[in-house]
C-alpha cells in the first residue's frame, strides 16, 4: 500500500478517509449491480449464452444420441464445408450482398438528398409514405410480392407484360432471386433508412449551407459536393448494418421456397441461414447446424464490432 511511505502522523487519518471512501465506493458498486442484475441475467441467458452454447455444440459428437462435448473435434465444421450446398448458399448470399448493399444505399441516399432539396410539408408527407411499408414484414411482404409479380392481378401487370414477362414463372427464376429479395428488402427497410439519412442531412450546420448558397452553388451542387461528403459517417453506418442484416437473410427465401405455388423455381435452401436451419431440422445434425450458425454469428459480431469502432457514433464514456 502506498501509505507505507507516508509520514507516521498522517497515516492513521489518511487510512480512515481512504477506507471510508472505499467502503462508500463498494456500496455504490453493489447498488449499481443490484439495478443491473436482472438485465445482466437476461444478457447472459439470451445475449451471450446462445453463442457459448453453440460453440460447445459445434465441437460435440451426437452419434450416440447424447451429446459428448469436444468429442467431435472439427468434424462438424468439415461436414459443413464439404456439403455441396455450402458453396451454393454462400455464392447466393454473396451475389445478393453485391447487388443489395450498393443499390440499397445509393437509392436511400438519393431519395434523402432529393427530399432534402425542398424541406417542408411535401417532403415530410412523402417520407411518411415511404415509411409505411416498414409495417409489412415476413409473410406479408412475401404475399405482396407474389401478388405484385403475378401479371394478371398486379397493378404493375401492364409494365411486366410490356417487357415480355407474362407469367409469374418468367419473373421468379433462380437468376432473378437476388433482385426479388432486394425488391422485398428495400420495400420494407428503405423508409427507416431514409428517415435516418434525412435526419443526418438536417444536422448539417446552416452556416455551411448558407456559405454554399453565397458562393453560387445550386441545389444539385450542394447535394453532391457538400451534403453527400458530410453524411459519409452515416453512410458507413448504414453500410455495416445493411451488410450484417442481409448476410442473415432467412425469412424471405424460406417463405418463397415453401409456397407450393412457386416451389419449382425457388431452391428450398438458398441462404446460409437456411442451410444451418436445414442441418438441424431436416437432417437432425445439431453439431453441423451449430458450427454454421456460429460462423454466421461471428460474421455478425465482426460487423457490429467494426460498427462501434469505426463510426464513433456510440457514446460510451
Amino acid at each position, binding site marked *: 500500500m502506498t501509505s507505507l511511505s507516508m509520514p507516521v502522523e498522517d497515516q492513521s487519518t489518511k487510512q480512515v478517509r481512504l477506507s471510508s471512501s472505499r467502503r462508500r465506493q463498494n456500496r*455504490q458498486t453493489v*447498488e*449499481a*449491480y443490484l*439495478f*443491473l442484475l*436482472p*438485465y*445482466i441475467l*437476461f*444478457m447472459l*441467458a439470451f*445475449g451471450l449464452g*446462445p*453463442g457459448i*452454447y*453453440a460453440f460447445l455444440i459445434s465441437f460435440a459428437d451426437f452419434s450416440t444420441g447424447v451429446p459428448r462435448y469436444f468429442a467431435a473435434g472439427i468434424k462438424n465444421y468439415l461436414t459443413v464445408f464439404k456439403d455441396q450446398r455450402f458453396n451454393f448458399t454462400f455464392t447466393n448470399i454473396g451475389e445478393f450482398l453485391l447487388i443489395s448493399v450498393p443499390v440499397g444505399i445509393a437509392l436511400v441516399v*438519393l*431519395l434523402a438528398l432529393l427530399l432534402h*432539396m*425542398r424541406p417542408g410539408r411535401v417532403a415530410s408527407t412523402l417520407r*411518411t*409514405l*415511404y*415509411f409505411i*411499408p416498414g*409495417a*409489412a414484414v415476413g*409473410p406479408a411482404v412475401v*404475399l405482396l410480392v407474389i*401478388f405484385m409479380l403475378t401479371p*394478371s392481378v398486379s*397493378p404493375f401487370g401492364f409494365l411486366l407484360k410490356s417487357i415480355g414477362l407474362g407469367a409469374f414463372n418468367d419473373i421468379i427464376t433462380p437468376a432473378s432471386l437476388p433482385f426479388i429479395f432486394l425488391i422485398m428488402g428495400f*420495400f420494407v427497410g*428503405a423508409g427507416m433508412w431514409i*428517415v435516418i439519412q434525412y*435526419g443526418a442531412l438536417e*444536422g448539417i450546420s446552416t452556416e455551411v449551407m448558407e456559405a454554399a448558397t453565397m458562393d453560387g*452553388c445550386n*441545389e444539385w451542387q450542394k447535394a453532391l459536393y457538400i451534403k453527400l461528403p458530410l453524411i459519409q459517417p452515416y453512410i458507413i453506418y448504414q453500410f455495416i448494418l445493411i451488410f*450484417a442484416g442481409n448476410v442473415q437473410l*432467412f*425469412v424471405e427465401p424460406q417463405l418463397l421456397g415453401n*409456397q*407450393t*405455388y412457386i416451389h419449382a423455381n425457388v431452391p428450398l435452401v438458398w441462404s446460409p441461414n437456411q442451410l444451418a*436451419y436445414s442441418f*438441424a*431440422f431436416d437432417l437432425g445434425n445439431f453439431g453441423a*447446424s451449430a458450427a454454421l*450458425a*456460429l460462423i*454466421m*454469428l461471428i460474421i*455478425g459480431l465482426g460487423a*457490429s464490432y467494426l460498427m*462501434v469502432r469505426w463510426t464513433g*457514433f*456510440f457514446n*460510451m464514456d
Partner: protein
Amino acid sequence: MLTRWFKKSVGSIGIFGSILRWAVLLIFAIYFVVPIFWLLLAPSKDTAQFSSLNPLAFGSLGQYFTVWKNVLIYQNGEVSLWFGNSLYYGLFSLFVSLVLCIPAGYILAIRRFPGRSLILWLTLITMLLPTSALVLPTFMELNLVHLVNTPWAVILPACFFPFGAYLAYIYYKTSLPLELIDAARVDGANEFNIFIRIALPLAKPLLGLLAFISFNANWNNYFGPYVMLNDDRLFTLPVGIQTILGSTSALEPGFNPTPGAIHFGYSEAAVAGLILIVPVVIIFLLSQRYVISGAFTGSVKE
C-alpha cells in the same frame, strides 16, 4: 403570383432538375404505396374479379365482409387465437424488457463502477447483432432446458432488449440533471426511491418510444417463433398465417376447394396480409413522431 410560385418551387433546382426530382420521388411513392393500397382493396373482389377487374378497382362491400368473416372463422377461429398469442407474447416481453432495461440504462448513465464499460460494450454489440443471427443458437440452448415449444421460448429471448438499455442510457445521460439526484440524496432518499420518484417519471417520453420499438419487433418477428414453436395453438400471427398460405394453395390459380369447406383464396390471403400489416400501420401513424426520433436516436452522435 404564378412566377413567384415558380421561383419558390423551382428556384436553384432548375426546371429540368425539378421535373427529374419530382419524377423520381413520385415513382418511389408509387412503389411504396400502391402495393399496400392494392391490398386494402383486394378483399372486395372474388377470385375471378382479381383478373377481370382493373387491379385498383373496388369489387363490392358485401364481398369484403364475407371474406373477413371467412378468415375469422377459418379452422374454428385460429386466426383470432394467433392474434391473441401475438398480442400476449408481445406485451409480456415488452413489459419485462422495460423492467429490465430502464433501471440498467439509468444506473449506467449516472454511476461509474468496475465493469461498467464491459456491460456497455456487450450491450452495443448485442444490440447491433441482427436478431436472426442468434435464433438457432438460442433454440439449442432452450432445447437443453426443455422450453422449446412453449410460450416461454418466444417470450424470454425477447425480454433481452439491449437497444432499450442503450436508449435509456443515452436518454438519462443527456436529460437527467445530476444535481436533482444529489439533492434527493442529501434529503435522505435511497437509490431505489430516487429511481422510482425522480428518474422513472422523467422517462415518460422514452417509455412510449421503447414500447413502440419493442412491441413492433416482437409482433413482426418470424424466424424466432417459426423455429421455437410446433404446436399450432401456440403460433404467433405471422407463423400461423404463413402455415395457412403455405398449406391451402391459397395463391394457386385454378385450385379447386373441397366442397363445403371455406376456400382460402386470393381474397382471404389478402385479408390475412391486412391483419398482419394494419395494426402496425396504425401504431406507426399514431406514434410517427416517436418513431422518427427513435430511428435517429440509435445513430445520433451525442
